[in-house]
């Protein structure tokens, strides 16, 4: 019973945070483009805008295309959303503040977030729309390509910490955050951010919703609440991956006064927000690149680079523990 309550609170907190992440992103993007962003709904600075957006989406008409594959079309937003929410089951927000600190937490994260593509594909297929289907095919291509470097970069902190448990990885960074390890840490962090941007399908890797070619990609036929669920799933996944980055490279909840759970959680959320804003910064600074460039970057640059990094980390860990004569 206690677990059910904790899960209820966590899910609602995550959804609330994610709703306001859209607001943060819009304000951030507006500043980068010398605009003000949402300002009218709620004083000061339009802080009620995300709530207004949500209400608008709920009361909109739900349209199902006549020729859609109805069960697949209707299930897709849910299948898309559930993995993004499940991610948060293993994330430790502060020492002892998390639902289930599994000893293979990172593996759970990778396994669950890899299921998201099923929902994306169902949406693209079920809509019975050429643009949506093309988008789903591009999504599959891209995720197959970037899953590998993403996992390889996530394994570097695992090697350094010697554990797959997310809280143990954070504790191993007590002296020095993994991002601060000379050369190795910075390169791994850069590779992680690139792979993150690609796995979140954001500019410059957003070919699957390239609005100038595919209108809105796999979600082009969705409206109302289903559209809202898809948007929510995307931002939740983005927030989840930002949290993972904060845990793996930026020392999670570690910081001055982090012995107190609330201070620790605040540090953790700040670090996750930093990664989110880093990705947003890239989004509003670059242009979309072509499909072949995206795939080439993954297989010809990122994959060899992360493999070499992983091997270098392995040698370093072996040297440190004295296994290499």
């Amino acid at each position, binding site marked *: 019973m206690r677990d059910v309550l904790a899960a209820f609170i966590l899910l609602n907190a995550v959804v609330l945070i994610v709703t306001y992440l859209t607001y943060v992103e819009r304000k951030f993007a507006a500043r980068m483009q010398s605009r003000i962003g949402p300002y009218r709904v709620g004083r000061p600075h339009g802080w009620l805008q995300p709530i207004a957006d949500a209400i608008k989406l709920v009361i909109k008409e739900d349209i199902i295309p006549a020729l859609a594959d109805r069960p697949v079309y209707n299930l897709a937003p849910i299948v898309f959303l559930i993995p993004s929410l499940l991610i948060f089951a293993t994330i430790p927000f502060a020492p002892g503040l998390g639902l289930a600190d599994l000893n293979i937490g990172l*593996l759970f994260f990778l*396994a669950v977030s890899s299921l998201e593509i*099923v929902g994306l594909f169902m949406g693209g297929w079920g809509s019975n729309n050429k643009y949506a289907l093309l988008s789903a095919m591009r999504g599959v291509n891209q995720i197959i390509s970037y899953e590998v470097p993403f996992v390889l970069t996530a394994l570097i902190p695992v090697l350094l910490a010697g554990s797959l448990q997310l809280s143990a990885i954070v504790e191993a960074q007590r002296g020095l955050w993994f991002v601060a390890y000379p050369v190795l840490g910075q390169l791994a962090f850069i590779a992680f951010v690139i792979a993150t941007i690609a796995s979140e399908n954001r500019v410059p890797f957003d070919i699957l919703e390239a609005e100038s070619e595919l209108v809105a990609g796999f979600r082009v036929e969705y409206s109302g609440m289903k559209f809202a669920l898809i948007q929510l799933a995307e931002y939740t996944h983005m927030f989840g991956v930002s949290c993972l980055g904060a845990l793996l490279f930026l020392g999670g909840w570690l910081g001055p006064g982090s012995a107190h759970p609330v201070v620790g959680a605040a540090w953790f959320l700040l670090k996750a927000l930093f990664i989110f804003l880093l990705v947003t910064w890239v989004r509003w600074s670059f242009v979309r690149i072509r499909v072949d460039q995206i795939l080439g970057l993954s297989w010809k640059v990122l994959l060899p680079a992360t493999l070499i990094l992983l091997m270098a980390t392995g040698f370093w860990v072996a040297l440190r523990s004295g296994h290499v004569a």
Partner: protein
Amino acid sequence: MSGVVFFLVAILAVASALGLVLRRNPIHGALFLVVNLGCVAVMYLLLGAEFLALAQVIIYAGAIMVLFVFAIMVLIPGKEETGPDPLRLQRLLALPLGALLLVEIALILQSSVFTAAPHPGVQPGYAAGAGGIQSVGRLLLRDYLLPFEVTSVLLLAALVGVLALAKRKAG
């Protein structure tokens, strides 16, 4: 509790396997396969083999994606072939061969494979401590290092072979 979960998951697994076989639409079939593989992962979890369960999800999520793409590109869903069935012989053979497989499974279950003592590298309750990952790692990279490496070379050879075949067709 875990008994109830097992029966629910087992029913779901069988139902989704039936759905996979009986649906004509290949995309629906692939989606049933997702459900089926998920059920198998849950069964691994119930047995305490967390690593195996999650590896199952990671590996088959990738495999399913490729299956989706092939289903769309090769099978053209919605335009299934009509007319004389080219696989008639296979259909006739399916029943006796299926029965043979069932008998084989029954014989294996009867034999000593499942009652014999486990491998000395496997401690009883090995999965409980470390989600199975440490013992799996130790078995793969120490006790069974040679077969493990040979398997990866085999996979690499398959990869190179596919690339060579695809290139020749294109050129």
